């Protein structure tokens, strides 16, 4: 049979955002995908169904989002790097399984293409859902790319972080980004840095599957390796056994959440623009960071000392980073495509140091640069 023309695409491509996510996943070593159709995320499943058999991977369309999230967890426990993709309303259903993945420390990647409730429009409405939407104590790692290239790059990063920290990682896309085509560069697979979960090296009878070293992340065996690990949502000790000892429970969640908090410098990715001498800082994520950068440049042209902190990793929230900006500037503006939610997080750490202004736009589209520029002028 003739190889398909897009069998290996390396080099420059003009490509749909959702397809870039799928290609990023395959480049990262993803070999299992389960999903349930939902606009505007369906193209990810379509692309994965076509591409996975070519690379020895497996795809299944499940009966619902709950089925998808648990199939993905099952595949990861059996050793495959796994991903699912959904959109806001579908993410609701997946929250149950995400809680299980956190408790059992199963590496998985979930794409959430945010959309307006009940309509196919752009939004940042899920910014809190992806942080808090799972039962039990947890920290989340959430990456919010702002371009099709970043969708590719940070899907790879999402796999690497999930394997490294044994935690679910969310790629937070937006309808606009996922359904947009842009020119991107796909590197040679050999040049892509891939992280794989650490495997246990001790004999099976000696393994305590939930005992971690200094990094707080235990090595992970796959089903069938001979280690016979029990995975449970219930409080469990280092051997994995269910326990009613609440001191053990306390220590377990201190470790599960602490492994993320202690590695915040490694996990949080961001970019700064014109911040060195800025009086006004814009803090933005996702597609809003694009308008914000343009607005900051235009403000500079008009003599206003504005700068931008573009957050790629939106969770965990980097308190120290935002605080350092609040100490330096007089005003902070937070543009968002929702009722203004991430603003509160910025305000929490900036209080008494800088005035924080929310710039929400909840109309299914991103801010124009003029709108953000007006926001900057309004506080200048």
């Amino acid at each position, binding site marked *: 049979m003739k190889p398909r023309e897009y069998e290996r695409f390396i080099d420059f491509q003009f490509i749909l955002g959702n397809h870039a996510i799928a290609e990023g996943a395959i480049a990262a070593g993803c070999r299992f995908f389960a999903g349930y159709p939902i606009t505007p995320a369906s193209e990810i499943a379509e692309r994965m169904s076509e591409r996975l058999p070519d690379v020895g991977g497996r795809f299944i369309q499940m009966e619902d989002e709950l*089925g998808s999230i648990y199939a*993905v967890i099952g595949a990861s426990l*059996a050793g495959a790097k796994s991903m699912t993709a959904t959109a806001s309303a579908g993410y609701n259903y997946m929250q149950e399984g995400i809680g299980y993945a956190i*408790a059992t420390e199963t590496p998985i990647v979930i794409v959430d293409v945010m959309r307006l409730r009940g309509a196919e429009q752009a939004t940042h409405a899920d910014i809190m859902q992806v942080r808090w939407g799972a039962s039990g104590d947890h920290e989340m790692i959430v990456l919010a790319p702002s371009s099709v290239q970043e969708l590719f790059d940070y899907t790879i990063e999402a796999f690497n972080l999930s394997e490294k920290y044994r935690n679910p990682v969310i790629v937070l896309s937006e309808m606009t980004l996922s359904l947009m085509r842009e020119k991107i560069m796909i590197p040679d697979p050999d040049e892509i840095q891939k992280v794989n979960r650490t495997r246990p090296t001790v004999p099976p009878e000696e393994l305590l599957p939930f005992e971690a070293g200094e990094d707080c992340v235990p090595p992970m065996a796959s089903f069938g390796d001979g280690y016979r690990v029990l995975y449970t949502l219930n409080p469990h000790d280092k051997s994995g056994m*269910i326990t009613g000892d609440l001191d053990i429970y306390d220590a377990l969640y201190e470790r599960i959440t602490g492994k993320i908090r202690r590695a915040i410098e490694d996990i949080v990715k961001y970019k700064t623009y014109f911040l060195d001498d800025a009086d006004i800082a814009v803090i933005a994520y996702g597609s809003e960071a694009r308008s914000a950068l343009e607005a900051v440049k235009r403000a500079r042209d008009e003599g206003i000392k504005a700068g931008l902190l573009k957050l790629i990793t939106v969770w965990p929230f980097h308190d120290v980073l935002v605080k350092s900006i609040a100490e330096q500037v007089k005003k902070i503006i937070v543009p968002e495509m929702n009722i203004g939610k991430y603003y509160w997080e910025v305000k929490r750490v900036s209080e008494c140091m800088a005035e924080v202004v929310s710039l929400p736009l909840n109309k299914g589209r991103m801010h124009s640069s003029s709108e953000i520029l007006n926001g900057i002028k309004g506080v200048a």
Partner: protein
Amino acid sequence: MAHPNLKYLRKGVLPHMFCPGCGCGQILNYFIYAIDELRLDVDKLVIIGGVGCMSRAPAYLNTNAIHGIHGRNLPFATGIKLANPELTVVILMGDGGCAAIGGNHLIQAARRNLDVTVIVDNNGSYAMTGGQVSPMTPIGATTTTTTRGNIERPFDLCKLVEVAGGTYISRWTTAHSGQLINSMKKAIKHKGFSFIEVIGQCPTQYGRYVLRLRDPVDNLKWLRENSVTLKQAEKMSEEKLREKFIVGDFVEKDLPTLEDLYVDLEKRARIN
């Protein structure tokens, strides 16, 4: 001398949490006999439970195991089997997880002919939470959520799985030790979706409040007295059968499994 089958249990798990005389303990015991007689490689065995009495059993077995989520056993199994078809996957669950919250997962996995074995302990109620009505509670039964009698018809789980596409289907009670162990062995060896419904006693809830039988032995006698074989059932009227459990093998057929069909599909793809 320790019992030779103790090697199948994790160290330090006894005593288990099942009530005295519970059918779950029996089913766990029969299952251990089945895997022992099959000489199954437990390193390659994955047991999936959930939440509830029967669903706790995987936490006791010294194998690869999943515990703690209600009703999602089959999606876990789907991911595991597609990622590594070499593994033997057995699901232990109750009637609540199987017929209510996990009902859609059950029929979809049967439709796909996923190569797994599902063993359901049907004790006719949600026992762990206090004996509420389940989709398997008979009409008229008074439970903690049907104090004036249950007005809903129960499922026939074996028929449900049959029309959904299951390829090995059988029903026994906890009073049929030999037959049930044999059936478990057949189910595990069968390539395709295997389903065993075990009518199990719950002396704490269903037995005590619905049957008014507190003694586990009386519960087991009741199960045996109310079971009829397929052959006996042929001669009985539908009305009489409504009060009985038909036991035996209902379906045994060979059809390609989801995993087999995926391998075929891959042959049509270009493997890099």
